[in-house]
């Protein structure tokens, strides 16, 4: 019995440690904003980049409702795509990252700097649907992935990870000053971020180098993995990427060695069922908070109440409110009369006077 009890105690300690770790990062939900800013067929690889990251992020648990995917051009249904409805990220077409469950939120000409900033700051017109909004709160971890050609967070967030795969990506994160922000870029200022593999059948480059190696790294991550950010920084050294990837962690509060990859790329949906009672007397920084009741639902109810259908149907046609000014009418008709009498002679005047 005694060894069992020791085992029991040992197990519960592990549980406690794990529980502690579970709540140590302090976030309760994950969001991802994946942006591809480049258009036209020859920028196929940027869309492939973004879709690959989208796929990885979904695989690691972030649902579509928490992903804002912005693609500036449609490669899958482009007339020049020899394999329509597919976007490949590996040559020899091993991996179709388009699939049949891609949910693009901003497409084509909706992908602009203005819209990107509006998504991040939340200043969208009230008619914008939920799928196009970043409904993050103070306890969200946000992953922002930007790729494409050449672009102070005010949204609510807990921690933010910025990944930029463009030329001179480091120039973007050098300007950040918001707290709790970690940034990775595929190239330094003055360097170009290069593409990886051309595919002869499709005719364009399929991926960029940094994202290719990033995804190779991410393929090994599963939802329960304990890889941390330091491993992410080692992805794609100069020998493989030709450009020098950089990162910036000075604005981040936690040490990057303690930050799990899944904190950003995966979603906090882990549920561990236990029959044990866990003693939560150890000091917790962040208690598990209930998801705040979404305000939007109440808003929509009041909107509906404002327009009862019966009132709309029986609206009378509006009375005309505008009348021309009297001076105008007077002037106009005087002129008309004058011209009339001038043309037809003054003899008609005698009929009036």
């Amino acid at each position: 019995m005694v060894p069992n009890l020791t085992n029991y105690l040992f197990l519960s300690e592990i549980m406690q440690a794990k529980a502690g770790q579970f709540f140590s990062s302090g976030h309760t939900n994950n969001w991802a904003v994946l942006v591809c800013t480049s258009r036209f067929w020859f920028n196929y690889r940027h869309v492939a980049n973004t879709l690959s990251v989208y796929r990885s992020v979904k695989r690691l648990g972030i649902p579509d409702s928490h992903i804002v995917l912005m693609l500036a051009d449609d490669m899958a249904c482009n007339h020049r795509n020899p394999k329509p409805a597919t976007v490949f990220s590996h040559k020899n077409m091993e991996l179709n990252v388009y699939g049949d469950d891609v949910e693009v939120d901003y497409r084509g000409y909706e992908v602009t700097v203005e819209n990107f900033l509006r998504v991040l700051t939340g200043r969208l017109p009230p008619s914008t649907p939920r799928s196009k909004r970043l409904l993050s709160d103070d306890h969200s971890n946000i992953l922002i992935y930007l790729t494409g050609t050449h672009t102070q967070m005010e949204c609510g967030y807990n921690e933010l990870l910025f990944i930029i795969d463009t030329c001179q990506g480091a120039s973007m994160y050098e300007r950040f000053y918001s707290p709790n922000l970690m940034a990775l870029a595929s190239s330094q200022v003055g360097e170009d971020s290069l593409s990886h593999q051309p595919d002869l059948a499709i005719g364009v480059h399929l991926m960029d180098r940094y994202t290719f190696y990033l995804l190779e790294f991410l393929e090994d991550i599963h939802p329960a993995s304990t890889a941390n950010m330091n491993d992410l920084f080692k992805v794609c050294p100069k020998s493989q990427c030709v450009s020098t990837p950089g990162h910036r962690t000075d604005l981040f509060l936690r040490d990057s060695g303690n930050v799990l990859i899944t904190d950003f790329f995966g979603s906090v949906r882990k549920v561990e069922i236990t029959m044990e009672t866990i003693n939560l007397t150890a000091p917790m920084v962040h208690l598990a908070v209930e998801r705040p009741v979404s305000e939007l639902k109440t808003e929509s109810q009041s909107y509906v109440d404002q327009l009862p259908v019966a009132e709309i149907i029986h609206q009378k046609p509006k009375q005309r409110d505008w009348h021309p000014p009297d001076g105008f009418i007077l002037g106009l008709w005087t002129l008309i009369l004058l011209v009339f009498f001038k043309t037809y002679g003054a003899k008609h005047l005698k009929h009036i006077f």
Partner: protein
Amino acid sequence: MAAPLTLLLIVAVTIRAVLFRSSLAELIPERVEVVSPLNAWKRVVEGLALLDLGVSPYAGDVFHETPLIIYFFHFVIDYAEIVFMVMTRLVGCVFLLQFRKQKYALEAERYPLDCLELIRTPKEMYYIPLKVAMFYLLNPFTILSCVAKSTCGLNNAVIALFILCTVKGSSLMSAIFLALATYQSIYPLTLFAPALLYLLQRLYIPVNWQRSSFWLFTTQYTFMYLGSLCVMVCLSFFLLSSWDFLSSVYGFILSVPDLTPNIGLFWYFFAEMFEHFRLFFICVFQINVFFYTIPLSIKLKEHPIFLIFMQIAIISIFKSYPTVGDIALYMAFLPAWNHLYRFLRNIFLVSVVLLACSALFPVLWHLWIYAGSANSNFYYAITLLFNVAQILLVSDYFYAYLRREHHLTHGLYLKRKDGSEATLVLK
């Protein structure tokens, strides 16, 4: 004349009434060939609705009609269909009246004897006014324009009234109607020259730069015209107490900001153009409309009615937002020159091209916008072809007219000095 005219009017009204009540009445006002941003009925309704809501109708890019149109439609908006039908009937009657006054008598005795066949007999001329009215009222273009309730019909009515007053010789009314037409859209300004020429001819004042009577009349007419134009513009200011109608109406016509496809030549060019060159090409295109006035006036100074026809044709081809209603106006004149039939060279080509293009316009529009298998190039090709056909028509009539004049002065069967038959070559 009254009976056939009444019959014609009844037929015309019936056709329009039938179309108004059919399902086509929703379809036709949407067609870009029939309405343009300047004269669409939808925009008139929008403008008046904005006014009821207390906003200036010229705020934003919706309404581009003049304030007098606002005043006019403010009262008749509920009876719009009737108004438009009345308008077209008015134009028909006006055409009828004016062509009665055609001065065929002047052409009587001065010509060589073998030209008798060129002179029109009074018997032929008796039916011309009716034919003109028929050409206008039963023209499919006019019917479409009327059913679409485009204010182009109003513009046509004003121009027709202007021509009537000019032909009757009343210079004040002519100046006033010309000012009204110019006030509506700027292009009838080019009709100033033919009107002046006609009135001078009627008063037997020769067009001689040294004569004081010429200058006297010219200044009189110019003052009347400019005066009425100023009065109208100032009156429009008082309607809404603001000058923003100037940039909304005239600025819009001259600077062509709206590039919705239509049957004109502007939209495609300016859609493709770089901003850098835009001003230059706007100037070029707009000058093109006004440019033909002076050479044509010099050539046709004894034939001002034909000059009016040419000018109206040139306006409706080269204006910034043409519609089929504008084309219908000058096509109505064609029966007046049916004595030129023997000299026209391109009748078959022109008529076939015009018919084919009119048929292809909706087809290619559908293919471009709805089916997605064509693009704007297809539609613009048909537009170009349509305008080329119109230009060919106008130049053909010009050639025929000049040739007839030549024959009237030199005899119909031309002979060289040695007596053999001569051929006429257009250089």
